[in-house]
């Protein structure tokens, strides 16, 4: 059903915390997401002209790179963007068929591809661009929070995290229960000031982003050059220095 389950106290809210301070923009999360999910729950993630001049296809995670601020204070920020598993997901409430749903037990937003009609209204209703249309299959695809990994008892326990989290070489992605204030991810959000994207839309995203850390003030003036290098005490070195300095 497309009605959003009523939140209960202590509601489990599985989601991601993405650290924009440590993300190095390597795109490994996006690639591993594609690799796992193309043969996983939402798969295949169809590609068109994959080996041609203009390859295109379904990606459930895309990494943007921004420049924020001006001059000395400007920062390059790598910014992975995927489904935020919102508490008020209007992508679900607009769905005419009930193919889109939000799970009451853990808050994950999923698509039942067996009954999706491919009207794409959910993609229009998502402010974040989390939903993609598979033009080959005629149905919508989205991040499942790797539902086929996190509950998969055939995997070693350490591997029961979303593919993007398991592959991140910088540990910039964290997975956990954001409904539990004592969980490691909730603590991280509290400590680092984790925030919502576009809070003004009112979708109440579950996923949180950690801001880049503030830098100590730095001087960008050129260092003053020492006229006599330390090794210049040696006569030969002094001569070489003089010759090369001409």
């Amino acid at each position, binding site marked *: *059903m*497309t*009605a959003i389950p009523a939140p209960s106290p202590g509601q489990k809210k599985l989601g991601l915390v993405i650290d*924009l301070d440590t993300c190095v923009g390597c795109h490994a999360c996006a690639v591993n997401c594609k690799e796992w999910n193309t043969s996983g729950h939402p798969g295949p993630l169809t590609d068109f002209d994959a080996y041609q001049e*203009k390859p*295109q296809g*379904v*990606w459930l995670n*895309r*990494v*943007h*790179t*921004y*420049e*924020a*601020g*001006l001059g000395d*204070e*400007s*920062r*390059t*920020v790598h910014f992975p*963007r995927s489904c935020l598993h919102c508490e008020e997901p*209007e992508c*679900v*409430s*607009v*769905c*005419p*068929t*009930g193919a889109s749903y939000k799970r009451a037990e853990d808050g994950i937003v999923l698509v039942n591809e067996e*009954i*999706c*009609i*491919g*009207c*794409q*209204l959910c*993609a*229009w*209703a*998502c*402010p*974040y*661009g989390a939903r*993609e*249309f598979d*033009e080959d*299959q*005629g*149905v*919508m695809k989205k991040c499942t929070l790797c539902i086929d990994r996190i509950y998969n008892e055939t995997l070693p326990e350490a591997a029961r995290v979303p593919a993007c989290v398991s592959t991140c070489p910088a540990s910039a992605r964290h997975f956990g229960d954001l409904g539990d204030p004592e969980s490691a991810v909730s603590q991280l959000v509290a400590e680092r000031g984790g925030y919502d*994207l*576009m*809070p*003004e*839309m009112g*979708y109440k995203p579950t996923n949180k982003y950690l*801001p*880049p850390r503030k830098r100590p003030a730095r001087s960008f003036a050129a260092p003053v050059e020492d006229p006599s290098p330390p090794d210049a005490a040696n006569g030969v070195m002094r001569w070489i220095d003089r010759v090369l300095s001409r």
Partner: protein
Amino acid sequence: MKPALSVIFFTTASGAGYGMLFWLGILDAFGVMPRATWFGPIAIGVAMVLASLGLMASTFHLGRPERAWRAISQWRTSWLSREGVASLLAYAPAAAFFAAWPLAGAASPLARALGLLAAVFCVGTVVCTAMIYGSLKPVRQWRNRFVVPNYLLLAAFSGAACLAALAIFWQPGPARIAAAVAVAAGAAGAAGKLAYWRFIDAARGTSTIESATGLGWLGPVRMLEAPNSEENYLLREMGFRIGRKHAGTLRIVALALGFVTPIVMLILGAALVGPAGRVLLPLAGLCALLGLYVERWLFFAQATHTVTLYYGRGA
């Protein structure tokens, strides 16, 4: 937003169909439609064919058209689902009105009551169509107070113009009344459209690239690198830009073709009636439909979506 031709045809054709049935029901209740046995069934038939063609066209937009029937299940939350349910329900009073006209007579209380009932369902269906767009928060050009009145006025206008075009082949009097209604609705529709355009041009989006990324505290934010080297589904579907480039010209085309020309033809056709009216009134209806097709194309093409903020484009 990408203007899918099937969806544009759907909203314009079904809007005209429901508008036509609405006015037939209302004007028959007031006793000002031709009383001829076959006028009613033919007019209801034309209206429902227009509405049905629109509904069928909308399924061409689906990735899985064979599953379209599933769309009527989630009417509790989804305006698209409500639109599907309302459009199906509207067939019942339309069919009853269709049968009552020749059997009980156009002037009978039964036919009048059924006509009014059909009119109510027509309004409900058009409101649902408009709310599919009017409910989407990420598209500021759609989620505003102008959208529902605009859809209703434009359906009323094109529907009345089509009714006038048909009625002239029976009696000049009722055709004149339908034409007068169409002129009034067309003038109101044009005013509403101009107000809508002024509104979307003046309003700014509440979301910005700074709020989308949450990096505004560092200063202005700009995209340095897109995630992928090529265009993707999101940009093709929600980052459509050709329409915005030609918006000024297309607005003039929509106003001239959709409102000014049909209104002039309606006035002339209603004044002259006779053979001239039988040419001018159908032409006015056709012209209104074509113009509204351009208007609806712009409604999509000029709409921006917040996802494009992530790609460093305005929304």
